[in-house]
């Protein structure tokens, strides 16, 4: 079977949904709502790129939602104090990288299971934020919104930035030796180590990158609204993990790419507006998203079984 079967099938599914919308609810394709939808998902896409790397390296990071919240609030506070966005953005990214490095040290350095480590940091960061912020919103100065540009220009900037990052990661994972290392470590870290790769360093860097991208995404998020709530980004981890898995990244590591994660994210994101346009009750949204995730996992399972039989 084709190596990119999963990526192709997700893209095909997305194409079918869009085609169905074009036939049954052409109202879906009004440019302004569609641009808003894509803009809202732009920060998610950035986080999903990082998550794809984490899962390909056979780890998981469920603290990304909390990282995203902490970075958002900190960026908001700095912006409210009058720091220019050109400084706030990199500062948020650096803070995210630091949070990611903390996870990375524990997972790669001490070889602790990432699901437990990031569960702990997820709770700690979230509660720490609640403690400091006491649920208070951070009001942002007007110049922050849409980078001080018009709304349309701001939206295009965000979408463009997310796509540029996607292309960078897509190319890097295929074209850079470092990308190959991530796959090797995710498939078999001992084999990678014996081949002269440093699995712990690779894992550490993947977590740092994940945090950095969460910081970047936080900046891309705060410019979209006049205030930042502390609850921002809760549940984000599940959303991106779902997108990545639907997009064909194997939860067992070593397989998949960011393009698939992109298609998976779009597929999940267009469920809600599609239902609205088809006049279906919104309650169906989560059910359908869940079904899509299940379908993806079943497809992976069948594929694995088929391969197992082929080897017997």
């Amino acid at each position, binding site marked *: 079977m084709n190596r990119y079967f999963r990526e192709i099938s997700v893209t095909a599914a997305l194409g079918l949904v869009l085609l169905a919308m074009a036939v049954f609810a052409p109202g879906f394709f009004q440019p302004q709502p569609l641009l808003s939808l894509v803009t809202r998902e732009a920060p998610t896409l950035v986080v999903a790129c990082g998550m794809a790397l984490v899962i390909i390296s056979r780890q998981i990071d469920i603290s990304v939602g909390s990282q995203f919240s902490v970075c958002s609030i900190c960026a908001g506070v700095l912006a409210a104090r009058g720091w220019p966005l050109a400084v706030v953005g990199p500062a948020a990214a650096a803070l995210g990288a630091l949070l990611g490095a903390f996870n990375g040290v524990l997972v790669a350095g001490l070889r602790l299971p990432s699901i437990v480590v990031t569960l702990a940091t997820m709770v700690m960061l979230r509660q720490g934020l609640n403690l400091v912020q006491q649920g208070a919103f951070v009001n942002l100065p007007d110049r922050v919104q849409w980078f001080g540009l018009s709304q349309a220009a701001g939206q295009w900037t965000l979408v463009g930035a997310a796509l540029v990052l996607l292309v960078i990661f897509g190319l890097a994972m295929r*074209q850079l030796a470092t990308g190959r290392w991530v796959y090797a470590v995710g498939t078999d870290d001992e*084999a990678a180590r*014996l081949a002269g*790769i440093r699995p712990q360093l690779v894992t550490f860097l993947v977590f740092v990158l994940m945090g950095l991208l969460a910081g970047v995404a936080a900046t891309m998020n705060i410019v979209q609204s006049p205030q930042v709530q502390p609850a921002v980004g809760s549940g984000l981890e599940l959303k991106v993990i779902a997108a990545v898995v639907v997009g064909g990244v194997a939860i067992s590591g070593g*397989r998949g790419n960011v393009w698939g994660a992109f298609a998976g994210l779009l597929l999940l994101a267009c469920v809600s507006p599609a239902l609205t346009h088809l006049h279906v009750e919104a309650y169906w949204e989560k059910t359908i998203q869940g079904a899509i995730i299940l379908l993806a996992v079943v497809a992976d399972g069948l594929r694995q079984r088929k391969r197992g039989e082929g080897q017997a």
Partner: protein
Amino acid sequence: MRQTTSAPLLRLEGIKKNYGAVRALQGVDFELQAGEVHALLGENGAGKSTLINLITGARRPDAGTLTLAGRPLPGLDPAAARALGIACVHQQPALFAELSVAENIGLRLEAGGAWRRVDWPRREARAAELLQRIGAEFPASRTVRELSMPEQQLVEIACALGVGARIVIMDEPTSSLTRREQEQLYGIVRGLRAAGTGVIYISHRLEEIFALADRVTVLRDGVSVGTHAVAAVTEPELIRLMVGREVSQLYPPAESAPGAAVLELRGVGCRAAGMHGVSCTVHAGEVFGLAGLVGAGRTELARTLFGLTPADAGEILLHGRRIHPRSPPEAVALGIAYVPEDRRRHGIVLEMPVAHNLTMAVHPRLFPGAWLRFGAEQALARESLRDLAVKCPGPDALGGSLSGGNQQKVSLARWLATRPKLLILDEPTQGVDVGAKSEIHRIIRRLARDGLAVIMISSDLPEVLGMSDRIGVMRGGTLAAVLPGKSDPHTVMAAALGQSS
């Protein structure tokens, strides 16, 4: 030994089995008498595993009949096979790693429903008794995870004994055993035979078949090409039957005189790895064989030289310069290559294409500036595949789709691509069929001729004796003796066991 008067214990006639388009068995006849050790011989892919799967009921034949003591067995499944007294000791023991030996044996042997109470003292007593019968030296309370591979195989054998099996199938039981453990195993097999059990014995090692078996059946390309009494057949005849061609020389001769010293060890030790005081010199153009029992420190020495467990005592000199590799990347940069023991786990990545596997150790050289260059990668892969005559559809085939011998060649090719000065091979032909084995031997010899210093770790004594220019024997974590090549096997074994010869 042969009871030709009674019906055979097991008879297979005209067995055929296809997996999709692959015709695994195309008409196999085989029979096993009670109280007989019947060896099954064949290259990898000849159909031995398929045949075992049919006898244990794991798969069903497409055509042909299985008869057990005169009774036909249509639709045999694993539970029925067990009930009929067919037990199999698999090459890779299928045990529960987190449970104790007694619990593992209990799970296999104890009958009863889900709600029965476990009689712990009885379970442990039975396990202890079985372990004692096979001469195992570990307690039944030991967790399986803590056992070595040979010890785990002993547990499997204990299970087969425990069910009182009429037919015991042993699939390459000695592939990871040392000489002493082999002798122990031979004793067990002979005991089974004396008790009237039929033993189907699968091995790549011809010496074992001659030491142990009464008859031998050779499979080639899914067809049984002959059954012979072991006493009436010679080693070259068997090899010819297996490969269908004459393998003129099992071991290629040394052709070149060793050159300058490449590696010099002075009292090298590593406390964490349990290795100490290793001193020796390995020259360019030399195959330095490392013999010894499993656990004697051979792999530990290799891992220390490769920087996996850095040395904490003594000096390592490479081309006269002191080195101290602390990690594999450092060792690679110094020109040391290590082809690890367990190729399926560590040698190559089965899920990755061959080309990716081949270049994995040479990224810094092949891809300066970190950008992958697919053209260069493909070119290197094609060259390596051709150079080592790897049978594979192309550089994009997945590692897992190759046969064992070809996987080993890919693993070797990966390290040759690093252009090493010192090549360490750990069990280079373990579980590899005879044809591929002699090809790998020729490659090793050619590399030595081209001036590489080769350290070859092997538990296969004929291989060590046949391939090595000099033989280092390790015992108890240190190098006990350095013997000349073509030494007497008894001398090597004596050194490995610590007896004065």
